[in-house]
């Protein structure tokens, strides 16, 4: 059972729905091994073997990805370390076009013969697939960049931090939460380093070094007399950063009086754990929500997931075109709506930008996995749908002469396809704080942290929960609520957006393991936003007796 095996692996329990990136064929290694990169000259030599072999067999286009994917995870519960694992996955994937069709093959045997045979196999698969072709692949033109490189601008490589420091931090977090009121807690640190090398028959040789970090915990409080239990998960975000994400700085905190402390760019895990212990216990005594229409004030630690599901996924062009119809689904943002240039996705203040370069974000890279230099572009402008997420073989469908650089594969052994870039809600232009927004709400709910999530296969109807819910009465926080979930239609919801806080409140949230494709692949992506207000949203009560 794939899902259960993963839960067993990490001890995540209820936190379940996360795919672990880059684990295919992974082998555990020592922390020291993770710090020695592969020589770029060697990678170029291996890539040239593949490029030449594929061309000689009849490929009209070839790209080669040599990937070294390093993961470290440390998992603890209460006063025990459950798991410390270092893994490495290293190999080479070759994608070709032959007879107008795609072919792909991969190997972890990196001698010249194996690479040449793999290239041959990729060409053979392309030729076999071309029998069932309806139209040949049309690639947007792409110039070769020659030999270039890109490195994530991290300050502290997490793989260099001793395991003992990480264990001490997590056990300290567990102790803080339990002292404050939690009965059980699982905490973890995930570190990822993707060392990716890309070469193509266009003449690019691109070496990149990507880092990601995700510190998280899941605290549970139990009332033994009623048998009720409540959880409060960490308010951290997975980030495209080094270990500096855990270096606490006072200027990165946003304190909402009577609610909690929120984090911007840096994360105080100990402080959040202490708050979580008390809040998990507090949720047991909170008022069960009265269902009905409320004005919602959504914190960025919550809103990122709503953005991910209702804006990120429907603007994926492969979904729009039907390539994901058998699994993830299609999209309500059909081409005719884009062509009309007047489809009201949201209210006038709603602006969404796709950005593959955003510093500190999960999706930041210099170049995508088909050798396209990454950039930034509008998806929703002044509430109107204006563009999609695009890769090279889709660009012609939109009349574009270049890809938007959205191609990604989660491993050397996976074939790259269109994946989501960072998609973020732009902050409000007027000066406005969280307090200013709450002040204006008569009957509302303030939601912090992400919880349960579900959306239909065309991205119309969604339902979201959260971690912390506070009733707003006449512009003031009036105490904690529980059993809250809201339901809406994506277009109605974004049209009900009436206030967005300014740049000072802008923060990133993100998905560490977003699943898509068959066989499924994992992608990491950030979503930025400032606290926003949505009027008249339908709230349900989720409490049931069994």
């Amino acid at each position, binding site marked *: 059972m*794939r899902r259960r095996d993963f839960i067993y692996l990490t001890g995540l329990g209820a936190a379940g*729905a996360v795919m672990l990136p880059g684990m*295919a064929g992974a*082998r555990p290694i020592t922390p020291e091994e993770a710090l020695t990169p592969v020589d770029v000259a060697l990678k170029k030599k291996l890539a040239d073997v593949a490029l030449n072999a594929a061309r000689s067999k009849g490929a009209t286009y070839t790209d080669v990805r040599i990937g070294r994917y390093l993961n470290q995870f440390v998992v603890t519960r209460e006063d025990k370390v459950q798991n410390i694992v270092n893994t490495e996955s290293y190999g080479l994937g070759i994608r070709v076009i032959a007879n107008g069709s795609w072919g792909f093959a991969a190997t972890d045997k990196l001698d010249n013969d194996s690479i040449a045979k793999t290239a041959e196999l990729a060409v053979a698969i392309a030729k076999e697939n071309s029998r069932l072709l309806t139209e040949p692949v049309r690639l947007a033109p792409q110039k070769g960049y020659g030999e270039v490189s890109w490195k994530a601008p991290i300050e502290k490589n997490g793989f260099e931090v001793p395991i003992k420091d990480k264990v001490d931090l997590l056990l300290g977090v567990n102790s803080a939460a339990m002292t404050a009121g939690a009965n059980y807690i699982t905490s973890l640190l995930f570190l990822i380093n993707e060392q990716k090398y890309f070469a193509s028959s266009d003449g690019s040789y691109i070496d990149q070094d990507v880092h990601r970090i995700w510190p998280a915990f899941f605290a549970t409080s139990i009332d033994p007399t009623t048998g009720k239990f409540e959880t409060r998960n960490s308010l951290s975000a997975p980030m495209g950063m080094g270990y500096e994400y855990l270096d606490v700085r006072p200027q990165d905190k946003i304190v909402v009086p009577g609610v909690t402390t929120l984090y911007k760019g840096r994360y105080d895990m100990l402080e959040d754990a202490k708050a979580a212990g008390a809040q998990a216990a507090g949720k047991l005594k909170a008022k069960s929500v009265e269902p009905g229409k409320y004005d919602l004030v959504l914190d960025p630690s919550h809103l990122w997931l709503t953005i991910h599901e209702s804006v990120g996924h429907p603007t994926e062009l492969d979904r729009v075109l039907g*390539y994901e119809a058998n699994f993830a689904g*299609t999209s309500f943002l*059909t081409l005719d709506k884009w062509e009309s240039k007047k489809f009201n996705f949201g209210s006038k203040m709603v602006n969404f930008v796709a950005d593959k370069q955003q510093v500190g974000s999960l999706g930041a890279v210099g170049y995508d996995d088909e050798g396209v230099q990454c950039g930034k572009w509008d998806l929703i402008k002044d509430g109107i749908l204006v563009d999609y997420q695009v890769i090279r073989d889709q660009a012609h469908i939109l009349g574009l002469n270049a890809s938007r650089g959205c191609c990604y594969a989660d491993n050397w052994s996976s074939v790259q396809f269109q994946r989501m870039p960072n998609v973020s809600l732009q902050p409000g232009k007027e000066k406005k704080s969280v307090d200013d927004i709450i002040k204006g709400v008569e009957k509302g709910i303030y939601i912090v942290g992400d919880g349960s999530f579900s959306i239909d296969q065309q991205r119309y109807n969604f339902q979201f929960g959260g971690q912390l819910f506070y009733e707003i009465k006449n512009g003031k926080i009036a105490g904690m609520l529980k059993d809250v979930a809201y339901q809406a239609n994506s277009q109605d919801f974004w049209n009900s957006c009436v206030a967005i806080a300014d740049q000072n409140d802008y923060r990133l949230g993100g998905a560490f393991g977003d699943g898509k494709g068959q066989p499924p692949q994992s992608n990491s992506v950030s979503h930025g936003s400032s606290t926003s207000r949505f009027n008249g949203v339908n709230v349900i009560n989720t409490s*049931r007796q*069994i």
Partner: protein
Amino acid sequence: MPILSKEQAQTLLKKVLSYSKADECEVNLNGSDGGNVRYARNAVSTSGIVSQNQLVVASAYGKKLGIATINEFDDASLEKVVRRSEELAQLAPENPEYVPFLGPQQYTESKTYVPATAAITPKQRAELVEKSLKVAKDAKAIAAGFLEDNAGFAAMMNSKGLFAYNTSTNTNFSITVRTEDGKGSGYAIRGYNDVNKLDTKLATEIATKKAIGSVTAKAIEPGKYTVILEPAAVAVLLENIFFGLDARQADEGRSFLSKPGGQTRLGEKLVDERVNIYSDPLNPELPTSPWNGDGRAQEKVSWIEKGVIKNLTWERYWAQKKGVKAIPSPDAAIMDGGTKTLEELIKGTKKGILVTKLWYIRSVDPQSLLLTGLTRDGTFYIENGEIKYPIKNFRFNESPIIMLNNLEELGKQERTVSTESNQNYLVPAIKARDFTFSSLSDAV
């Protein structure tokens, strides 16, 4: 690596163990050959062949455990991986919950391997896909599908004399057919150990019929309805019960099986008395491995009998602490069905809704096992024993525990695949009253 015979695996594993200097050593070896074809917009989009193998060595010193893995099998590599696991064990903190490896176990002979599936060729895969595509194209509809198959072996041996070996094959196929105008969508999913049982033409015909039949769907009011859930829809709800049977979570008070005062619902009647759920590695329709990853034997276990929770799953540490048998999590689950076909269930329904598939299932409240998700790819209104018209999709908020208490009737048992976990199950169609649909969706 080809599939190793039992003797070949035994020889290799003995060699690995001969390098061990730790207090305890356990080695897992597995290999598989898999193939897949993905298609959309009536053409193949990607296809791949994946061959992988892995040797996992776990070494323990006292209560300190280290794990290392390798995919090279020469003597030097085998010794290196043993040394690396020993180094990691020495660096690891002591785990107070460490349980020593198992000694020799008795296993039954498995039925999980079918030579025809292991012998599948790229040409056969292409033919299976072509048959499916033809059905959709002939109906002027648009198909997107995924065919995957694999054949593999798994073996384990440890320094206490345990040895286990198994081979298995599987093939899963799913197909979505949409009408050209995008107003209708239908779906079918199949899973078998034997690829010869897979009929991609028939599955695509069913999906096509549902696609065409679901055009011009009407909106009806959300609320509580009698539903007939097809087996694929049943599987994604019930697996949340199967995944939630952990005894430790229940004992700790954070499961739907927990009760006030630290008690659990083990031994209590929780659902309708017609509900019988069990696992059986030797079931001919859904055979599974006779042993699990830590070497425990998989036996026939009753989980829910006549509506009563009969057994929970146990980690070895927790079972030892509680002094009970450490029953492992099963690799599949089976629910007893009735004798009626889907058509007969529909015929006996005055007013109700037929659900082909449920999608994007997520836990809303683990306390009540409340789940949310949506209907998809063929939802129909039933009146006076007949399908009257297609209806627009609904979001539901319902607990499978409540659903099994509202049971009306069970259909025939059928092997199906979870669209959420890709896991195979043997479950019936279920007719249940008062299933809670909370809002409408415009999605097709």
